[in-house]
Structure formats: C-alpha cells, structure tokens
C-alpha cells in the first residue's frame, strides 16, 4: 500500500501521466471526432472502423479511458499536494528561533572577509541593508560578541506550484460541472417569431436579422436583435453578432449561422391584370406575410398564407412540397377575397410560370407573383454552462500561481560575524536560491561587494552590481 502511495505522488509518475495524455491526445486530432459510424465506414477500412468504434476514438476526449487518464492526473496532483505541501508549509513558515550559520560552509555561494568595524554598528547596518533589499531579517547576538544573521525573501514563490496545481483541479471541476449541469442547443429562428428557452422560464424573440458586407462582397458580420420576454412582457432587447452574445440567467445566445427560409418570405409583390373586355394592368402591390391587403382600384383583397422555394406537386399524396431549400421555383399561396370580404379563391402563384393557373374563378382577372423578398432565419447557438466561471476562476488562480512559481524566487542568506582570538572579526556570508541560479550569481556578488564596503574592507563598490 505504501509503495503504491509512493508511486502515486512520485514525480516520475507525474511525468509519465502528463506525457501519456499528451501522446494519446494526438489520436483525436488525426481521427476526426464526432462523426457517425457510417462516415468512419466510408473513410477507413473495416479493421480500423472496428478499432475506432471499440476504443471510442470517434469521441475519444469524452471516452471512459481518456477520462480515466485525467482522473490519474487528478489523483497524482492530490497525492503530491497531500504528501509535499504540509511539510513544506511547516518548514518554510516556521518561526526562526535561533539562527544556525553552520550551513554557510555547505553553500556554493559564499564568501569570507574581515570586518573593520564595530560589531553592533555593523549589525544595525546589516539589518538596514537587507531590509532595503526586500529581505526579512533575523539577527542574533552570539556570545562572545559575534552576530548570527538570517535573511530571506520570496517564500511565497515556493508555493507557486501548489497554487498552480489547485487551479488545475478547479479548471477540471469547472469542466465537469459544465458537462453535467449545462447543455448546448441550436435554433433556427425567423424574424418576429419567438421560442421558449429550454431549461428556463423565459422566451426569446428575433426582432431583426441582417448581414453587413465589405465593399468586396465578403461578409463582414451577421447581426440579430433579440428580445427577452418574461411573463409575457418584453424585458429588454440586445443586438448580438458573432463575438457578442446575449447573456441572460446563465444562458448565452450566440449568432452562429443564418440561412434563407424555404417555407416563408418576408414580402411578395403581386400584380393584378384584367384580360376581359377592358384590358388593364394594375400597379403592383407589396404584401406582407399573413396580412390582409386590398388591391387599390379593384374589388379584391389578398392574404399570403404559404410559400415554397422549389415548388412541386406530389401526385401520390396530392399535396404541394418543395424539392429543395433553394429558390428554383418560388411559389406563393394566396387567398383572394371579394369586396364583401367573402373568400373566393385559394391559389398558388408561380414566379417562373405566371399563366399556369388561369384567372380568379368566375372572373377574367389574373393575379401574378412578380417578386418577393426572402426571409432569413438566424441560427442561434444556445449554451448553458454553469462551470464556465469556475474555469475562469481556475485560470486566474493559475496566473497567480505562475507569477509565484516563475517570477518570485526564494532567496536565503546566512551571515555570521565571528570574533577571533587576535581581535580581528571575520564575516562569513552564504546564500541560496531555489531557482534561476544565473541571476543569483550576480546578485550574490553584488551583495558581497556591498557588504565588504560596509565592513570597511573595500573602498568603492565594484561595478559588478550591474544587472
């Protein structure tokens, strides 16, 4: 058991898990993710399809074995933290009772020189000097007139790795919460229609959809105006575009796509023509979807109740349908009323075949579809992910952890003043840094130079303090 525990918190295991996750992750970038079985059957040989589906390589980042690897990483992080953090905390934050300068002889950065000054005066100089350099200082008087000094700074840098590890756990926690408590959805919405949002108590209405173009004809931006409706009341309207979603009650609405509707239009242009004894072509009129409109100068009123982009007739089921989503054969379904409001006809008008369906019954008046303005639908991605903020929190904490770990170094200096028998006092100083030895070389040399100056053994500061 204890050897298993040792394995779990060992750094070699960490490196093994990290490299394994890195290596297997490559698979999912080569095998396309999230396709259906038929697609893989077309792209790969039978043997490979078998492997892909058995190992769930089609959705590998959500497969049990990949999740298992992530769990191993989490276990490793937790084991490391339990094993290493408490002793580190105890050692680093222990109150220094008595300075032990015996360590100086074991340090690689060390120096020895004479002190040509009064010891107690030197001691206060030292405290001021180290404090000015950002160190915390503990200086003891040693029996016989010597000094034992310990100065340290940047302890927090030692905890950078722990902060980073915790932040990684937070990010993973956020991802887990998102995948269990959130959802993703897509809605194609027409202008002036609304839909109720899943898993919530409000509705969204699309008020307007438009596209902006560059001069070159390339699309600059898709835009929608969305209104939030709650308890039957309009709450507020927001203009969204790609990169600017609507956020309400934990749910985000993104502009993700658009398209032309195949079963409705915004407006149609109709032209009435009398072909009886008196021939007359009326002014074309524009009618809106499902809105009763009278044709000026005539006894008729019309209402558009249907539209098909690629009109066709199904003889077997005796109904009309659209062969495709493209406007190859646009047709409008129009109801015609007479002056008393009596419905006299329901007819399909075809843009490309104006005379297919004769005159309005009982008259010599013909109605033509002479134009239309398509309705776009706005494709909205709907995303609820309550874990997102935890992921951002984790990311922020990770940033703090990095600042601690990479940019704050734990530096420790020990200094002793020993009174020799011949009355000459010697200063021994040694220092250590937890990382970035190169920069410490210079800093230590600079420190020693300054100490020598203060000790009265050097006339001027050597110019090696330059950074």
């Amino acid at each position: 058991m204890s050897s298993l525990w040792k394995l779990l918190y060992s750094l070699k295991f960490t490196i093994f898990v990290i490299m394994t996750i890195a290596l297997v992750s490559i698979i999912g970038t080569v095998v396309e993710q999230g396709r259906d079985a038929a697609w893989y059957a077309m792209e790969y040989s039978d043997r490979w399809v078998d492997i892909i589906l058995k190992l769930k390589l089609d959705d590998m980042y959500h497969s049990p074995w990949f999740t298992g690897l992530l769990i191993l990483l989490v276990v490793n992080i937790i084991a490391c933290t339990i094993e290493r953090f408490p002793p580190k905390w105890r050692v680093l934050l222990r109150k220094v009772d008595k300075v032990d300068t015996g360590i100086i002889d074991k340090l690689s950065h060390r120096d020895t020189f004479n002190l040509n000054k009064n010891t107690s005066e030197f001691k206060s100089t030292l405290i001021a000097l180290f404090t000015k350099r950002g160190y915390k200082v503990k200086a003891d008087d040693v029996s016989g007139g010597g000094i034992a000094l310990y100065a340290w700074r940047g302890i927090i840098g030692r905890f950078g790795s722990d902060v980073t590890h915790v932040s990684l756990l937070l990010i993973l926690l956020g991802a887990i919460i998102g995948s269990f408590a959130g959802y993703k959805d897509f809605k194609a919405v027409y202008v002036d229609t609304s839909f109720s949002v899943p898993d919530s108590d409000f509705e969204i209405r699309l008020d307007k959809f438009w596209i902006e173009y560059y001069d070159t004809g390339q699309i600059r931006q898709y835009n929608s105006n969305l209104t939030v409706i709650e308890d039957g009341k309009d709450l507020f309207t927001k203009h969204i575009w790609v990169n600017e979603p609507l956020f309400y009650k934990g749910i985000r609405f993104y502009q993700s796509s658009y398209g032309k509707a195949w079963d409705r239009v915004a407006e149609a242009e109709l032209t009435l023509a009398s072909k009886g004894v008196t021939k007359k072509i009326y002014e074309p009129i524009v009618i809106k979807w499902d809105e009763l409109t009278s044709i000026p100068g005539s006894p008729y009123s019309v209402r558009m109740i249907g539209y098909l982009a690629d009109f066709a007739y199904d003889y077997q089921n005796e109904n009309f349908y659209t062969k495709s989503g493209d406007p190859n054969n646009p047709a409008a379904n129009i109801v015609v009323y007479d002056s008393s409001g009596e419905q006299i006809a329901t007819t399909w008008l075809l843009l490309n075949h104006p005379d297919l369906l004769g005159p309005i019954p009982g008259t010599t008046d013909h109605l033509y579809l002479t134009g239309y303005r398509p309705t776009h639908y706005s494709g909205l991605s709907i995303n609820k992910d309550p874990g997102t903020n935890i992921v951002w929190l984790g990311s922020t904490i990770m940033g703090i952890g990095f600042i601690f770990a990479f940019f704050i170094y734990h530096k420790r200096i020990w200094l002793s003043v020993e009174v020799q028998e011949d009355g000459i006092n010697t200063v021994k100083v040694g220092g250590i840094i937890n990382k970035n030895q190169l920069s410490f070389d210079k800093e230590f040399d600079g420190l020693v130079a300054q100490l020598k100056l203060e000790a009265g053994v050097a006339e001027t500061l050597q110019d090696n303090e330059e950074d």
Partner: protein
Amino acid sequence: MDQPKVIMSLMFFTMSLAFYFLATAFYIGYWLTRKDWMGQAGTSLTYVAGFSMTMILIFRAVESGHAPFSNLYESMVLFIWAVTIGYLWMERKYKFKVLGAFVMTVASLAMVSAWLLPFRFKNIEPLNPALQSKWNFLVKILEPLGLEKYAIGWLDFHVFATFIGYAAFAISFAVAIMYIIKIRYEARSKKSFLFDSFPPSKVLDELSYITIAWGFPFLTVGIVTGAIWANYAWGTYWSWDPKETWSLITWLVYAAYLHARVTRGWRGKKAAYISIAGFLAVIFLYWGVSFILPGLHAYA
C-alpha cells in the same frame, strides 16, 4: 477590387530578410573564428533586424487597419520579432554571443519560411466575422476619435501571448541543442575549438529553463485568452478542435519539462530532449495543424 497597400511592409520584410541572413552569418563567423568584431557586427545587425521587424508590424497595422496578428504571415512576423527581442534581451543580460549563431539561425529559417509563403498569404484580407473580436468599452472610447477600427480584443491578446510563448520556446530549443552538444564534449573532456566557446552545460541548462519559464506562462495566457474568445465567438470555451488539442499537447510537454527538471534522473539531458520535443510540437501546432488537419483554426 483594388489591391490593398502592403508595399511598405513588404519592403521592410525584404530588408529584414537580408538583415537576418547577415546577422546569422556574422554570429556563425564569430562562433567559428572567435573574432570579436564579428560578434559585434552580429549584435548590431540583430538590433537593426529587430527594428525593421517592428516597422513591418507598424506598417501592417496601418495598412490593414487592425492589429497585425490576423494571418499566418503576420503571425510569423510577430514570432520572429519576439525571438529577436527575446534574444537581444538575453544577450544583454547574460552576454553569451555564441548563442546568436543558433538562435538567429532559427530566426532566419523562420524568415525564409515566411518569405516562401504565397502572396495571397501576405496580402490583407478583410476580417471574417469570428475574427472581429473587440472590447466594447475600447470601441466606445475610440469611436469619437474615429479610431474604433483599431480597438483590440481577446483575439489580439490570444495571438500576441501565444507567439511570445512560441518565441521563448524557439530560443529554448536552440539552447537545448547547444546543451546536448556541450555535454557530449564535457563528458569526453577533450579540447574542442568549436564547443569550448559554448557556455558551460550548467549555464545552458539554466538558460533553457529561464526561457521556458517565460514561454510557459505566456502560452498559458494564450490558451486561456483563446478560450475566452472562443466562448464569445463559438459559444464554447473548449471544443477539442485540432489546434486547441495541439496547444494542450504542447502545454503538457512543457509541463513535463518543468517537472523533469526537478526530478532526479530526468534533469539535464532528458529535460533538454523534452524541450526539443516541445518545440517540434510547437512547429506542428503552428504549421502542421494549419495545413494538414482540418478545423476551426484553418485560416491561420
């Protein structure tokens, strides 16, 4: 369709190309002959090259009307610029000119690959809807001044941070190669005119670490700001798109490096190999994914 005006930036690019070749040649000359004036010339030319790259970025911003980080060519310029600035900073601080022979070779190779890109990559394309990521508050501040098109957003941060990270990894890669060479000669304790001028392997190991210690946080910021942007543009902060996955792979490799460096039996040589593997992952993440694997990032 009138041609966008990329003349100035292309002119500076051509000049930069020459500066990089010359600087690299002088640094290599310095390494092979140990003549100080060659090292001086290399350094001076690198400063000139860095200035010239800065001018490309400024002119691209003026020519295109947005931050110059929107396609492969512009990002290459940013990458090489960051390698140059990072290297100059390192040379000032640690004074090992011989590193220039290796780092500037990497920079020159990157220049050549950017130079070989077809013209349509170097031209300015209008930004597609997903790339128009601007902070609203900044747009509102700049609008009265008529400068709103220069507003920046998460996307600009994402690209900028990512490429600072890549640049640091490129420097670390060059240093790691020097480290591998150096320890072979140190182990044999034979004199070698070529490799004695390398800094001691301990120093090279430290330099490789320091650059990764810069690159790793920047890559992380790049990934996180990319996630924030994706959360605005695509409706999800992580979608396991090949570019995202490869950025995670690269991140993991460098995370492994950082752990290897504090592990007995892994520090030194093995860590250096991980650093080299990490940069190979960067190259694939950067070029390989864009040209070989399909995905949302296909445009850059």
